[in-house]
């Protein structure tokens, strides 16, 4: 591990100023991923700006509704929050499906969004990886890639984003609040993570020095029926082979009034299934309609040599979750 400086910030202003003052700085929150990567020599920050004690650890109800989740709210606390469980069950379920109890106790909301892929080649400095070392090539494309992307990958990178929480946030139309040298801005979670394209080294649209201060859950999806389902190699503590977050609101006339479907484990970012949603909105959520909608979305899939199983897996999961939500309505 490369020696590094350490600064503990007491305010958001102090944090962004410290980041600006130290070239090669990185923000440190729970550290569950960043510190591992530093040990492996994958991340080599010059300075860590510790933001874990900033006063961003509360869940608040803004006057207009929804929830504003501070960036340092721990994953365990967010999953257990009564208003989250009541109004956004998909988020609570996704959080509890991720990592282990110990990790959720230390990992933060902001850090969860910013975690890096678990591609073995990304984590191994002895192999090529365009995400870790741009221009060296993608070892996974022809290497060990059962866990890798089937949607939206590029010749340069086939990594997936590992977060469960982010998949739920994408389905809930949540937004990310950022504070940086040029002030504040807001980015929808669905646009927060990038597809790899020609620049897989850029996971997100976060600009240099920007700090996540909060994630906002909108009033529009509060209280709508929602669910998260994840398929994995073991019953706990495993990344998603595929996962589904869905929100489905069926009107009194039996047609879909609101639908959001997002896949995890399939792409470089949570994959919002817009084609499926378009097909379902305003239609009756019959088994056939659900099947066709999901099929339309997964028609975009381009599996690699060893991960074609993810396509039927995601299809079955999505169909099941949507079908259960459709059947559950009062």
């Amino acid at each position, binding site marked *: 591990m490369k020696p590094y400086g350490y600064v503990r910030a007491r305010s958001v202003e102090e944090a962004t100023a410290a980041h600006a003052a130290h070239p090669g700085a990185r923000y440190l929150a729970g550290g569950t991923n960043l510190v591992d990567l530093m040990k492996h020599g994958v991340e080599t920050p010059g300075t860590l700006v510790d933001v874990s004690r900033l006063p961003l650890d509360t869940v608040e109800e803004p006057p207009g509704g929804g929830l504003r989740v501070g960036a340092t709210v721990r994953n365990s606390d967010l999953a257990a929050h009564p208003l989250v469980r009541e109004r956004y069950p998909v988020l609570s379920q996704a959080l509890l499906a991720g990592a282990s109890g110990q990790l959720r106790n230390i990992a933060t909301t902001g850090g969860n969004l910013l975690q890096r892929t678990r591609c073995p080649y990304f984590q191994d400095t002895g192999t090529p990886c365009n995400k870790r070392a741009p221009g060296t090539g993608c*070892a996974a494309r022809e*290497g*060990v890639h059962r866990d890798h992307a089937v949607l939206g990958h590029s010749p340069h990178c086939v990594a997936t984003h590992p977060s469960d929480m982010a998949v739920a946030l994408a389905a809930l139309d949540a937004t990310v609040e950022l504070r940086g040298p040029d002030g504040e801005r807001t980015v929808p979670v669905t646009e927060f993570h990038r597809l790899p394209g020609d620049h897989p080294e850029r996971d997100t649209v976060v600009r240099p020095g920007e700090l996540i201060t909060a994630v906002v859950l909108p009033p529009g999806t509060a209280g709508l029926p929602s669910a998260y389902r994840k398929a*994995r190699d*073991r019953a*706990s503590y*495993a990344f998603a*082979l595929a996962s589904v977050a869905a929100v489905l609101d069926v009107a009194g006339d039996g047609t879909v009034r609101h639908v959001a479907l997002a896949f995890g484990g399939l792409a470089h970012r949570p994959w919002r299934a817009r084609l499926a949603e378009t097909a379902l909105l305003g239609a009756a959520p019959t088994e056939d309609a659900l099947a066709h909608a999901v099929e339309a979305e997964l028609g975009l899939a381009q599996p690699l040599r060893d991960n074609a*199983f993810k396509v*039927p897996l995601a299809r079955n999961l999505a169909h099941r979750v949507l079908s259960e939500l459709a059947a559950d309505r009062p």
Partner: protein
Amino acid sequence: MHSTRARVPAAPAPALGVATERIEGRDKVTGTARYAGEHARTPPDCAYAWPVPATVARGRVTAVDTAGALALPGTLAVLTPGTAPRLGESDDPTLAVLQDDAVPHRGWYVALAVAETLEDARAAAQAVRVTYATEPHDVTLTEDHPDAYRPEQAGGRPALRERGDAGGAFTAAPVRVDVTYRVPPLHNHPMEPHAAFARWDGEGDGAHLTVYDSSQGADPVRTALAALFRLPEDRITVVSEHVGGGFGSKGTPRPHVVLAAMAARHTGRPVKLALPRGHLAAVVGHRAPTIQRVRLGAEHDGTLTSLSHEVTTHTSRVKEFVEQAGLPARVMYASPHSLTDHHVVPLDVPTPSWMRAPGEAPGMYALESAMDELAGALGMDPIELRVRNEPATEPDSGLPFSSRGLLACLREGAHRFGWADRDPRPAARREGRWLTGTGVAAATYPVLVSPSTAAATARHDGGYDITVNATDIGTGARTVLAQIAADALGVAVGSVSIGIGSTRLPRAPLAGGSSGTASWGWAVHRACTRLAERLARHTGPLPAEGVTAVADTAEEAGRTPPFARHAFGAHFAEVQVDTGTGEVRVRRLLGVYAAGRILNPRTARSQFIGGMVMGLGMALTEHSTADPAFGGFAERDLASYHVPSNADVPDVDAHWIDEDDPHLNPMGSKGIGEIGIVGTPAAIGNAVHHATGVRFRELPLTPDRVLPALA
């Protein structure tokens, strides 16, 4: 002050057979038990070492640039194949670290950084620049690999055994099963990674090497270090007081202890070296993958007429290790014609080694799955098929069994599991998205025992000190040895102190092959029996130094008895398969064992169910992937190498039948450390077949494999 001993003490209730708490349990759960890497007396001048693994799969080191590493603050030295001290001869080539420039596999150590702190050492290791001349590599095992050869031995037994005409009898059999099973590479991954602390004291002929090592046997480590560092054994002390699991990977000395001793000698400083998890996959062994062809020929009534089990596996280019998966077929079933054979392919892979019932675990997965297939082909209950083929004597040797409780285990298990109500039709139990099935498989593990020494001392204060260089790898060895001693002495277990885990104590074999309790316990029993005799003759107060008796079981434990000695068991599993995701989840797991006398029901149960969880992992979650492009294994942390989590193990239970076998050892015990693993993967696989109607023949049963087959 001297205590006076009653000539005929009132004998307390026997300690053996009583569920007894672990002696060191409190130390472990309160964190006061010290492991090799965290010894309490770490000296202030302790330095830290961090090895540098090769990043190519095959080739030679052409240059090692240490300038960047040496320029970092805190770096004390960087040892390379060109500069490391020359070692003496060893019979284990994996210990010849930094002795030449050859790279036999990815992850092989090519340099060692030594520095003031752990962080400095890691930074220095990452700053070492190694240049290689690479050669084309091959890490892929195939059935028809051109380099496959038949080794002389597999697991210390002949690689090939044939009785009668297995091929001819198979062809002539009216009912035939000819199937090939595959088990991937697997890794031991104990919770405590391998670690060592090494210190040299004195100079020249007075030099003494002290090592704290996480090992399953301190004496074998000392023997290896004596050869490598050209020292008489009495000038080396190896301590392995507490060991956080090993599962075979700490059964032989490993490179880290050699590197720690080398670094300490080179720098003149005590040195600590704890391997990072990411290195373990390449340097401390693994279970080699196996491709196993099983051919069973039977009469219509289920009587086997031909049994063939042919195993192909891999080894490294530096050392031959053969996963002896064909051996259990020589024990299990009567068949007039039989063939068991092994072939091994040297590849550019890390050296495989012992892991959790080597041979028996993968071999019985294939054999017991094939038996299930045969039962299906015959339309016969799988338990009945096993009853039909129960042998009168051990099939391969013709020796009588000292005891064989397989049928009793199957019957007891069937009763407890509710097997009689089972509908044998596959794919017939669907509830919503779940398919449910049940399966059974037999288990066997040989009775192994090695000579050991031990000493027993009656202290003048009325207590007893028992010493033997046993290793407690988490099994409860200390506790059971105290129980054995207490009963042999006829005293309460609380008056017995046990000293283990150091070469300063009487020499003893390693903890491996489920043989520890038998080997150490025999010597402890013998020493305590002698001591009791001596005390019975003793008059007056005991002397201040107490009275000591020693024992060496070289003769009795080394004797080959005219019996086939094995533990047996039966495993039952109930699984559910999610038809939409291909996820397989175990709902119930039951093991019933015939393993001689169970000495401590509390720790025995823990070993049995621990083994069953390992078997569950082998069946459903664990696998390592030899990376064809880069060599080495792709899974190098516990997030990607999936040992079962608590959520995977909802209901696991172990029982045993009473077995009185006079041909074992004075305690009447058989080893119980590994048999829990042996039948579990096949029982789960057979249950998955019963649930889905699909026969999977490659482990693990993860969604990528299961889901496409259900479509």
